[in-house]
């Protein structure tokens, strides 16, 4: 016996689905449906997270997914990733260079005077975590006035289009490994190939760039607290828009097809000796993801460094173990496994109960025999 036939399950499922839709619209005449532009703008961090974890930079559909799943970021990312599996792949971009990013924020915790200067951009780093009660009854007029006022009175003459990288400065000082572009190196495609260990670093970076933020943070935090020794210094954290370049079909010249907002983080970690007798240099970690998500980019950079160490010397803690990290950080994989426990396990549980009862019976018989002497 493998399955138990039941009556009326289909109706209950339909009812559950329509009830979900009822809850989404339960404000009735007193409410308005969320419009996608509002989600993209006012829920921008959630929106970026969904694009990043879904692995697809599609602002409109990410907003739709958030609306449809009422803010559940895992479900929304799942829907986005399911959508991508229905679309044909047309091509891949040439290797894009993040130094071409159009920045809206760049900071460094390594130096104060970084070339080009530090610009905080939009950040909660300095916010008091106190609720702003004035937003409880925010008027449309106040809302619109803020934007209009903010855009006035700012001199932008001295702001360049792009900025030099802090890592390039450290390289010039001879403190980092020399730059070594690997234009012919293949990148591992995690959407088409399974992770069979050991995997190349490109597989780790791709897996982490679409990983669930909390999962990455949790494992990176274990390293920060002592189950590891990365001790990162943020050389540069940058947020901005990366131009997506593709060769023009007629001219062959690289042409801009659009731009994606990304967060990128480079960390400098403990220095180590060169195996081939060169001078010791700092080691590095790298993190990047779609959207504005600094916790994710920094966690990824820490884990990139810890995984490099694990791949080289063998893992000495969970965050250095590629298999442990890379197979447990995907939000959609882990959510799927977790939620499958809600599905009927009637047969397997019946079997568990039978075995338990048999074991209890055996124990009772044994105790009876021992009591009889």
């Amino acid at each position, binding site marked *: 016996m493998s399955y138990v036939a039941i009556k009326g399950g289909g109706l209950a499922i339909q009812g559950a689905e329509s009830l979900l839709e009822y809850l989404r619209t339960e404000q009735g005449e007193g409410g308005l449906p969320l419009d996608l532009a509002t989600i993209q703008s006012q829920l921008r961090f959630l929106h970026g997270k969904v694009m990043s974890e879904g692995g*697809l*930079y*599609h602002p409109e559909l990410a907003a739709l997914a958030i609306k449809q799943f009422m803010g559940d970021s895992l479900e929304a990312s799942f829907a986005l990733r399911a959508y991508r599996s229905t*679309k*044909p*792949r*047309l091509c*891949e*971009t*040439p*290797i*894009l260079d*993040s*130094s071409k990013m*159009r920045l*809206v*924020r760049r900071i460094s915790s390594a130096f104060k005077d970084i070339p080009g*200067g*530090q*610009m905080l*951009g939009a950040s909660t780093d300095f916010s008091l975590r106190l609720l702003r009660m004035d937003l409880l009854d925010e008027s449309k007029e106040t809302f619109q006035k803020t934007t209009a006022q*903010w*855009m006035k009175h700012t*001199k*932008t003459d*001295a*702001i360049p289009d792009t900025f030099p*990288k802090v*890592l390039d400065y450290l390289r010039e000082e001879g403190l980092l490994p020399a*730059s070594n*572009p690997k234009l012919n*190196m293949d*990148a591992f*495609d*995690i*959407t088409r190939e399974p992770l069979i260990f050991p995997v190349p*670093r490109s597989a780790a*970076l*791709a897996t982490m*760039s679409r990983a669930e933020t909390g999962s990455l943070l949790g494992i990176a935090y274990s390293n920060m607290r002592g189950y590891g020794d990365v001790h990162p210094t943020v050389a540069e954290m940058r947020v*901005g*828009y990366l*131009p*997506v370049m*593709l060769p*023009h*079909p*007629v*001219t062959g*010249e*690289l*042409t801009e*097809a*659009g*731009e*994606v907002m990304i967060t*990128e983080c*480079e960390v400098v970690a403990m220095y180590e000796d060169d195996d081939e007798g060169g001078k010791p240099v700092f080691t*590095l970690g790298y993190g990047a993801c779609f959207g504005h998500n600094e916790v994710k980019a920094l966690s990824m950079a820490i884990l*990139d460094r810890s995984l490099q160490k694990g791949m080289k010397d063998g893992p000495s803690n969970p965050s250095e173990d590629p298999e442990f990290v890379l197979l447990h950080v995907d939000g959609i994989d882990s959510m799927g496994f977790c939620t499958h426990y809600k599905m009927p396990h009637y047969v397997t549980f019946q079997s568990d109960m039978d075995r338990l009862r048999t074991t209890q019976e055996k124990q009772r018989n044994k105790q009876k025999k021992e009591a009889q002497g």
Partner: protein
Amino acid sequence: MSVTTEKMSSIVDRSQWIRLLSKLDAEQVVAEVNTLSSGWQITPKSLPQSGLAMLKLEDSAYNEPFYLGEIPLATAWVDIVTPEGSNADGAAQVMVDNLEFVQALAVCDGILANRLPGYERIDELLRQGLEQCNREEQRRKNMLAATRVDFSLLDAVEDDDEN
């Protein structure tokens, strides 16, 4: 990029045309192209497609390429023949799903590159796209300028709080 009275397509490099035009409302561009190219023979040189592209990025720590994720992409490459017998081809690749829009952009590319009859109207669209791009750039630079950190020693400048 600055906006002048010269023809935009002479000032702005072809590699930026699609970027600027795609800033505009898709319906506006499609309507303009449909009006302008009425009676022209426009045939695809390759099948217009809508799908995804893998975004490959170089990690700036060790210069290794990896896939950051996927992006939507629509592509079109068209051959254009005008009633006067002018022949041109144009192409576009844009991060959208809208096939009608990308085909219209490909026609714009062909019109501008070959100065086909009526190209001034597409040039005007290019100007509008450039203005929009400049506004966006200005907005982003505002964000940076307003939050630039001044690391001068406190005793060397007036305290920010007093301003």
